């Protein structure tokens, strides 16, 4: 006799919901999946993906590189955080990259990867990404997929609206998300309205070298400048920044900054700003901000800069205008033509689309509503092209575009993507995301010629999407086909950290430019040795320098004596290999440091302070060859003040 059992109420509810939502209880596909999805995302073994996708690692501080459409993780590029796997931020050559005006900071919160542009198209040269917490912008060289430069943004706080790129990579932008006393001073927090303000910064990019210099900063009222996009085509020369908290609340902002029906978009004419700076209208503020870069010798340096040029809007008429926009706006995104830009209001149920030509007419006709801290506020209707009103979803955040005049907007609250037509704001299609989508991207979606094909949803919550992994779950990306009239979910894959934003570029623009090895003959590291016969060990007081080489499958020297407890032992390892994909590692017992990972032709240095007497092994950590295990050696550590002379073995 069968025991009577309760039907699990959740299952019952789910079954009912499934019938209600889909109208079909015998569906053959899982939530969102489509029949041919596997074939669409399958990249056979040994074949390449069509796109590189560069995703922010969010609070991991790094950038992760995926192939699309497969969703395969290809690399994690260390940027703002130490990475022991790659000895980034641990080797002497890379530690200066993480210097700031606050000292060495081993972490940041990375949000918005932005590909460099030429003529409003992705050119595949560099990738920029912001550090939100200690305001910084990093530049990654895409031929090497390594971070080459980091510049701190002085007097900023919460570098979130960053580092979006102008159409010719003239500037990458930055803005203060968390208004603070600017420059900093000791004032009551309640004096927000009189003492707090923000800066919108334009960081210039050298067209040849990519070198970052702080161009100028615009001193703006103390709202929270949240996201940005520079214009392109007709709107080239302008940049648009959303801002919330026009209430200027300083506490419990979730409520107090959500009171105004409309906040604003700051439309900044940066070419006008350049002119005002050239006319000497900027004031020089004292500042302290770090500028870190990797030199020709592949060695990082850090300098502290002490001045910044700041423009007051009152001194530069025509520099900045405010456009009212509904309910705590988040993203502001410019369409491929450069004529239209859409704003997402986090608490809104519609998406306003503005027209750049109407903005110009409204400015010319002085169609102003009022002034906000001396900055003209344009009439909403004067700038508006149309509103996406036909039940587009809840909580619009970000919009990207395809090449056919369509826009795709992420809806955080209703967890979906809505497709709509730019010219008339008609809603065309919608697809659920799993769950709580933040940013989304179309390959090339911020260029004048999007590659289209896919929209990728970047989700905050995954709950039941993967095998559970305890309390902490992965965030995810979802690949959605946009080639047909209806969007189709093809794939979802977990990501590293929170993939706030990502950009994708045709692999053909990058893959053939990849550097395979560093040229040993051109190695300019001051501690490099280019042949085994030049390897040596030198003592200078309590400092011992070991000039070591690695090549399959041995170190030279691999027997070192004469090191004493408490010495600072600088071990400089030059990888003599000139073969692709043959890095060597180096690790020694008890080092308060990561391993070294040394690319072919490269030199990396670790510092080891031996604490105990004895003979300590070191070895290669990256499986390099059939005799990788034999790639090891010994360092003898003698008591302090002992008479053991420095000695080492030499090649025969």
């Amino acid at each position: 006799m069968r025991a009577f059992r309760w039907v699990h109420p959740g299952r019952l509810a789910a079954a009912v919901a499934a019938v209600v939502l889909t109208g079909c209880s015998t569906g053959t596909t899982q939530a969102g999946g489509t029949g041919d999805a596997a074939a669409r995302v399958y990249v056979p073994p040994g074949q390449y993906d069509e796109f590189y996708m560069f995703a922010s690692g969010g609070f991991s501080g790094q950038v992760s590189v995926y192939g699309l459409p497969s969703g395969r993780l290809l690399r994690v590029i260390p940027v703002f955080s130490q990475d022991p796997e790659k000895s980034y931020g641990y080797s002497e050559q890379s530690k200066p990259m993480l210097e700031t005006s606050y000292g060495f900071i081993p972490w940041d919160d990375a949000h918005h990867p932005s590909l460099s542009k030429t003529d409003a198209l992705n050119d595949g040269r560099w990738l920029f990404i912001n550090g939100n917490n200690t305001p910084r912008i990093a530049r990654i060289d895409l031929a090497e997929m390594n971070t080459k430069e980091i510049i701190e943004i002085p007097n900023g706080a919460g570098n979130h609206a960053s580092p979006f790129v102008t159409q010719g990579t003239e500037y990458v932008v930055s803005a203060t998300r968390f208004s603070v006393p600017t420059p900093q001073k000791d004032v009551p927090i309640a004096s927000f309205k009189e003492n707090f303000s923000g800066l919108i910064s334009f960081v210039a990019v050298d067209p040849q070298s990519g070198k970052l210099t702080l161009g100028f900063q615009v001193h703006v009222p103390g709202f929270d400048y949240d996201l940005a996009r520079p214009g392109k085509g007709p709107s080239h020369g302008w940049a648009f920044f959303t801002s919330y908290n026009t209430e200027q609340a300083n506490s419990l902002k979730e409520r107090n900054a959500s009171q105004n029906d409309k906040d604003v978009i700051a439309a900044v004419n940066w070419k006008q700003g350049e002119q005002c700076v050239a006319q000497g209208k900027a004031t020089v503020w004292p500042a302290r901000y770090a500028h870190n870069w990797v030199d020709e010798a592949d060695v990082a340096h850090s300098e502290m800069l002490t001045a910044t040029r700041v423009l007051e809007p009152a001194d530069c008429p025509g520099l900045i205008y405010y456009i009212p926009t509904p309910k705590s706006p988040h993203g502001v995104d410019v369409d491929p033509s450069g004529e239209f830009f859409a704003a997402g209001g986090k608490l809104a149920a519609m998406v306003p689309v503005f027209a750049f030509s109407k903005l110009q007419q409204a400015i010319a006709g002085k169609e102003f509503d009022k002034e906000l801290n001396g900055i003209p506020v344009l009439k909403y209707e004067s700038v508006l092209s149309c509103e996406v009103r036909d039940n587009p979803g809840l909580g619009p955040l970000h919009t990207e575009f395809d090449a056919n005049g369509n826009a795709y907007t992420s809806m955080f609250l209703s967890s979906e993507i809505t497709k709509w037509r730019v010219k008339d704001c008609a809603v065309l299609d919608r697809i659920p995301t799993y769950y709580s989508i933040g940013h989304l991207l179309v390959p090339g979606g911020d260029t004048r010629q999007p590659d289209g094909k896919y929209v990728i949803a970047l989700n905050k919550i995954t709950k039941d999407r993967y095998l559970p992994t305890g309390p902490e779950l992965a965030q995810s990306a979802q690949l959605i086909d946009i080639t047909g009239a209806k969007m189709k979910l093809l794939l979802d894959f977990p990501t590293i950290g929170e993939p706030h934003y990502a950009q994708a570029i045709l692999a053909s623009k990058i893959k053939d430019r990849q550097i395979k090895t560093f040229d040993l003959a051109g190695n300019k590291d001051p501690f490099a040795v280019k042949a085994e016969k030049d390897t040596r060990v030198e003592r200078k007081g309590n400092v011992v320098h070991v000039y070591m080489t690695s090549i399959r499958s041995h170190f030279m020297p691999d027997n070192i004596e004469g090191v004493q407890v408490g010495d600072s032992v600088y071990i400089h390892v030059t990888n003599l290999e000139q073969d692709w994909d043959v890095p060597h590692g180096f690790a020694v017992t008890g080092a308060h440091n990561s391993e070294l990972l040394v690319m072919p032709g490269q030199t990396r240095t670790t510092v080891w302070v031996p604490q105990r007497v004895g003979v300590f092994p070191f070895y290669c950590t990256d499986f390099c060859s059939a005799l990788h295990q034999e790639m090891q050696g010994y360092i003898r550590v003698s008591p302090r003040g002992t008479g053991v002379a420095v000695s080492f073995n030499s090649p025969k």
Partner: protein
Amino acid sequence: MNPASTALRWGEGRVADPPFTQARPTADSTQVRLMARSSRLTLAAAALALSLVYLLPLWHIGLKAPQYPEGLGLYIGVNRIVGEKPQDLNSINNLNHYIGMKVITPGDIPELRFMPWLVAGLIGLGLAAAVSGKRALLYLWVGLFASGAAAGLADFYRWGYDYGHDLAPDAIIKIPGMTYQPPLLGNKQMLNFYATSWPAAGGVVLILALGVGVWLVLRERGSPPVPA
């Protein structure tokens, strides 16, 4: 009738050919056998074409292995040995240390220093033969060329044999009976490497030039002398 009895034997026929005999000028002790104008031009072209070997590699040795799907390669030229890709020679030397092979150092191979002069001599002699039109010089040219090519191949074999057999006694990888001589011409599997050895563009030029020389010899031997 025995057909063999009517066949010409080596040396017969031409001398007995009345028109040729009659066309010959009167005997003159200063007369030399000169080449046809077209032959001299062809010879000059062949000799000049040899100068291409200063620009083009003579030979290519290729190596493929699971770890090297893109392959490693060496180009052997008249005066240099270089990697197919910039680091290939370096990589091949590094791999060879496992089997105890000597390091390939182009600077230590004397042939690379004197071969350019041999080629220059061949070009000069070929041009001299073409300008003077002397058939004897043509025969000398082809003879030297052919023996030089044979000596070159033998030398190439000797180097290959030496590298492949003269291995360090304390080599990391020692397999009884295994040697690592690359093929003189053709393909061969050696441990995880598949080696190929074929003429490269410059080698093809050499072969064609020699072929032209041989053809000219055959042609000229069948032609009457031309007055000086």
